[in-house]
């Protein structure tokens, strides 16, 4: 891809003019850089999620869901089992409101009497 060719004469002239970068104490530079980096690196380690820590973000959500669930359970009306007295009361109500079976069966008189009864005559 790089078919750009260097120009040796130009490069030589530039090098003759500017020279190469001087030698410096690279060990000292490295020590300076790494010393300055200690604090930011420590901060990065502190904020870095490890192990279960990625799930930390979900903790507030889980807590909120738990509170909502507990509230629903606690405020839900309790269904108590029916007592014997309840059963008796239900039966009494049914007896009082349900027509007798004989009333539901057609009278012996036949269809004319039924029709008359229906018409109120």
């Amino acid at each position, binding site marked *: 891809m790089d078919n750009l060719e260097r*120009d040796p004469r*130009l490069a030589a002239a530039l090098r*003759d003019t500017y020279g190469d970068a001087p030698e410096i104490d690279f060990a000292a530079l*490295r020590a300076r850089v790494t010393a300055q980096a200690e604090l930011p690196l420590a901060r990065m380690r502190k904020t870095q999620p490890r192990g279960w820590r990625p799930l930390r973000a979900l903790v507030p959500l889980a807590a909120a869901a738990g509170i909502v669930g507990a509230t629903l359970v606690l405020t839900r009306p309790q269904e108590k089992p029916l007592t014997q007295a309840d059963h008796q009361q239900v039966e009494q109500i049914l007896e009082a409101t349900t027509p007798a079976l004989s009333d539901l069966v057609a009278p012996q008189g036949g269809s004319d009497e039924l029709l008359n009864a229906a018409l109120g005559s």
Partner: protein
Amino acid sequence: MSGGTGAAAVVPLASRQAGPAGDDDGVLAERVRAGDAAAFDALVNRYMRRAFAVAYRLMGQKEDAEDLVQEAFMAVLQRIGTFEAGRPFAPWFFRILVNRGLNARKSRSLRAVEAIPEATAAHGPSPEREAERTELRGRLRTAMDALPERQRVIVELFELEGFAGPEIAEILEISDATVRWHLHEARKTLKKALAPYERSA
């Protein structure tokens, strides 16, 4: 003076992405993201020489160049969250370095050439020849100073620091074709400045 950082500079960035005994840059960058000091030190050790050479081209002074290298590595820590895993680290790093260097140069109104000492002036050619060389250097400096900043940086990175065209394109966030065009224009200008000496040589 010569041969120190300059000799190392011609190694293409791609071949530096993994040391013989070390992790590749991407792995190191990921570890740095997690705050791994050893990984950061490995990156510093891998790139500081070339970074210094480039910084020196940009700043023109040893102390300024060292400061720039240090700032660039600190900027790596600040921005490591934006580094895309799987992308090459070197162009990303040198982009930070070059951008900071250019900004610093602008803000200090510094031209790199002003502070760089005469390179090889004391090597004993005849006084006539030496006078000619001095004049040539002066003309070249003037021509380099007159180049648009981008062209100047491209010449420095390509001709002096050994970066490849695509690497420069990635560092400067421009296309390969634009790098080529700038380099072509810069060479034309510089050769015009050197023409009288080319003939005499």
